[in-house]
């Protein structure tokens, strides 16, 4: 069999597949209306301070600190707890000397990712094929 041809075929499939992922596989984001200018600034800070080296979003990131996807609703939407951590740090979490605006921005970002989805899923069913279906019950 012609190897160039197989490669070419796979490559074309890969391009089609990639564009499907970009444009139709990932359109879902129910938190999008919460992604305000402030939250965008928060995202930028989250990256610049390398929060992901210790924290996870959707289980992806470092393991020194807790998972942050739903940390706001986990604390019953009481953002003052997150604020306190950001303000003072802890023995393990550094104090980044953030000013109030920066903390506001980070909180907005955390609220946005909280609205965007659930992790880990609260209710799910496991099918005999080994797949998992999330059962979305709560509307945050």
């Amino acid at each position, binding site marked *: 069999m012609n190897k160039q041809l197989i490669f070419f075929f796979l490559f074309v499939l890969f391009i089609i597949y990639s564009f499907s992922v970009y444009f139709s596989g990932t359109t879902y984001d129910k938190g999008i209306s919460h992604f305000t200018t402030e939250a965008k600034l928060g995202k930028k800070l989250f990256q610049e301070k390398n929060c992901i080296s210790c924290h*996870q979003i959707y289980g992806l990131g470092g393991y020194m600190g807790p998972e942050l996807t739903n940390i706001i609703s986990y604390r019953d939407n009481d953002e003052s707890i997150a604020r306190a951590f950001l303000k003072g740090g802890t*023995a393990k979490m550094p104090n980044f000397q953030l000013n109030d605006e920066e903390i506001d921005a980070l909180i907005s970002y955390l609220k946005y990712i909280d609205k965007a989805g659930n992790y880990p899923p609260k209710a799910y069913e496991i099918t005999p094929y*080994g797949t998992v279906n999330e059962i979305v019950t709560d509307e945050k």
Partner: protein
Amino acid sequence: MKNNQGFPFLIAGILALGLGMFIGTLAAFQFIIPDFFELLPFFKSRPLHVSLVVSWIFLCAIGGIYYYLPTYCRLPLFSSRLVKAHFIIFIATGLAIITSYLLGKFGGREYWEFPPILSIPIIISWVLFGVNFFKTVFRKKGKWPVYLWMWATGIVFFFITYLEANLWLIPFFGDNIVREITIQWKAYGALVGSWNMLVYGTAIFLMEMISKNSSLAKSNMSYFLYFLGLTNLMFGWAHHTYLVPSAPWIRYFAYGISMTELFILAKIIWDWKSSLSNALKFKHHIAYKFLLSSEIWIFLNLILALLISIPAINLFTHGTHITVAHSMGSTIGINSMILLASLFFIIQENSEKAIGSNVLKTGIWLANISLLVFWISLIGAGYLKGTLSFGSDLTFQEIMEKLSPYLISFGIAGICLFIGMCVILWVALTHLLALRKK
């Protein structure tokens, strides 16, 4: 020997690995003792460790390719000036990345945690490498052995997926967390797949050289396995993001593709007898010892990878240390063992005496056994974290408390692994430097 192009890459790779492992060991202890080594806090030590050890994989794989093409494939390099330029850009970018971490300037994307501007020289250096490689290998007449295909694929796909990993800079991608995370991990999966192409290609090349059997890299089976690997590189990444709310078809498709790797597992088991007789035949060759370790690690990590690609298992293992076991097991046990095989192959071929002192053998054993303890500790920690996160109401701090025995054993195994690898690297470095002077 003096003018060999690949050497600077190999030597820089050894130094990067040594330093990267040292910082990794520090970081492991920062997990257990919060204020340990405050000079380099965890949010700086982690990216330093990752970037240094990843650069070892690239440096050693690239150095090997630059060395093997003219010497063994009878393909003189298209341009040695491009090789020099590649090396200079690589090292300068590496130093800039290290400086940015030390200054606390981050881009904050996992694994490539440097400011995105530094991606520009990385992309440029990769273009230089690609031009040089393709201008060199297109002169070859006749059928390409599979390792040339793999090296070519690794180069092309690193380039594509590195660009893809930077798509988040465009608002369409960056302004939707579901899209951003999904595409980030789509790109990362394929990036790792592309360096695996460089490394596995090197392994097949070495096997051909050691066994002196040139049909190996031209058999139908080897091309079949290459295409299977390529398919997984392209479509099999989504186990990282099974739990991100993207479209379900992405998950189902990736799940199906990942399971095709069962074929590789079956083949390893099927072939074990001939693998054993190979082991007896070639065990005198120092490079083969490393290849043999890598084969054992392929077996173990493949089982783990297959398991965590099943969504129902992934649900509990995702976001736990089992993922770390998988990545460390593959990068150390598989990638690094193959690259060490490549280093020692080059050393052995240029030395009159057989390489394989008792010190080196002790280093190999120490590294592999401590890696096993290290790997099992991570799996233990991950198992506990997964079950406790789902099956109990413990807080994060309480769970971390329960994990600490595993993390301590991980840290201690890490020190032993570091020592074992240092012995190996030291032997390699002194031999390489001696060869350079010849």
